[in-house]
């Protein structure tokens, strides 16, 4: 028939119109900013620094090895090492960063810094509401702004965080065991010398 396609089209749009009042499939708009879409597991926007424990600066996992600074393609990371060392989670003394700046207007979210970090210290975040009215320094994030707790990281990526935590726990246990063994081996000699 001549107008069959038009009639079919009009029935479909009428269904859209009527359905948009009661059927969520027919009205798929999410009214941002009142409603937000649920976050997606592997989305990534900008990097952040992970810290363990309560104190952000004392618990930072970053040891200022500057691998991420060297590997970053647009070179947006700027690190100055602090020569005062502090013990890490296994007790070994490590350096720490005095200045750790990332220029988020340059960062291209490639995630290479995350891939090369040997200490699981820098991970990708999912925040995107970064607009600021400060045109010069508004998007230059310092280590205080970049530091976020491990709990936050496990919220974003539960399995990965669990794996990292398990590994670190295992390493810590082994380090403690070997330290205990060394402490036991380094006990003072019994009087009368060793036979």
């Amino acid at each position, binding site marked *: 028939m*001549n107008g069959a396609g*038009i009639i079919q*089209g*009009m029935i479909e*749009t*009428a269904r859209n*119109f009527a359905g*948009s009042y009661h059927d969520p499939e027919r009205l798929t*708009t999410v*009214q941002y900013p009142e409603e937000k879409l649920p976050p997606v597991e592997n989305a990534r926007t900008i990097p952040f620094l992970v810290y363990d424990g309560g104190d952000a600066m004392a618990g930072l996992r970053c040891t200022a090895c500057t691998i991420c600074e060297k590997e970053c393609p647009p070179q947006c990371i700027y690190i100055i090492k602090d020569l005062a060392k502090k013990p890490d989670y296994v007790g070994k003394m490590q350096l720490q960063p005095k200045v750790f700046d990332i220029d988020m207007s340059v960062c291209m979210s490639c995630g290479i810094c995350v891939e090369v970090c040997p200490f699981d210290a820098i991970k990708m975040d999912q925040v995107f509401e970064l607009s600021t009215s400060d045109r010069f320094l508004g998007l230059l994030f310092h280590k205080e702004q970049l530091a976020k707790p491990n709990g936050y990281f496990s919220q974003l990526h539960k399995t990965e965080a669990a794996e990292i935590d398990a590994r670190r726990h295992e390493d810590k246990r082994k380090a403690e065991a070997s330290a205990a063994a060394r402490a036991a081996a380094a006990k003072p000699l019994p009087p009368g010398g060793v036979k």
Partner: protein
Amino acid sequence: MRGLDQIFVWIGREVAGWAPAPAQPLVSAILIIAGIMAVFGTCFALTTIAERKILGRMQNRFGPNRVGPCGLFQPLADAVKMLTKEDIVPFSADKTLHFLAPLVMTTPIWLAFAVLPFGRNMSALDLDSGILFFFAIGSASELAVFMAGWSSQNKYSLVGAMRAIAQMISYEVPLVLSTVPVLMLAGSLSLNEIVAAQGTHTLGGLARWNVFTPWGLAGLLLFLIAATAESNRSPFDLPEGESEIIAGYLTEYSGFKYALFFLGEYLGLFAITGLAVTLFLGGWRAPFQWLEWVPSWLWFGGKFGVLIFLFIWVRATLPRLRLDQLLNFSWRFLAPLTLINLAVAAAWHWTGAWESAAAAPVRWVLCAALIALPAHWLGRALRGAVPPPRKYHYAE
């Protein structure tokens, strides 16, 4: 319920009575003009927001809903934007024509509202040749389109204006011809008489609207298609399609002049819808005799609203036609059909004696076939032969 029906007429007469006797016709005329402008101005504002919201819902999204409850103050925001925009006139543009084009577009269309009967005793001018006045006034807006396109000294504007004028004059033929059966069977060019001719009732109290006859139904469909094309609305909005030619003849217009063109376009739509309601849908008459107590202007408004919703619905559904498809459709399908419709109306008139319960369906089916078959054949001829079902060959 006579009181509510005639309330506007009564108000007009009372207010005009306060003026001194020699100035009364003038005051009465001014009141009518002010009333029409107020009603259709508000209608324009409401239609812009209703269109955007209905289009949105049909496209699985909300329409504007930030300004005011459900976005109802959006027309105010649009008005403020249009009024405060800088009025840019191109340096090499023809200044007089560029300025006059929006005026020449809008003024005749306000005139066209004068002959429409909005209710019982509620038409501003009872002209003997009302329809001729309507079409004569409507054809003046094509000059405005040319003036707009030519004065902008812009190739895109000129091409857009040429295409717009070609479209408008092509679709005037089916527009006018599809109303001729109505005039033929009503016996008059006056719109009040046409509404009166649709005032009798058949068995069951169903009113004898023109749309309940085969030629009336076909005529209404043809008229509505031609009206969509005359108002440059989707799917015939090639002259001003944003993705086609920027804005066609409206490219160089900004601010209030653009708002005037916009207003003129929507007012043209309202005028043609009012005419469709008057000619085919019985004007201000109720569909059933026992519904006559509802005020006549409410019936007019209701039918008007239904037709506007139909226009918006078609806009949401159909893609834009190309220029050659458009012109072929008008000259090779609509125009011959309107001529055949004339013959069908004549056949209907000659079989006017077939009123009994047995003969009336025969009359209807016969006349309907007389127009449906040529429509089918013409559609086939326009589309080309239907291709055979596709045969798929797969690699072995």
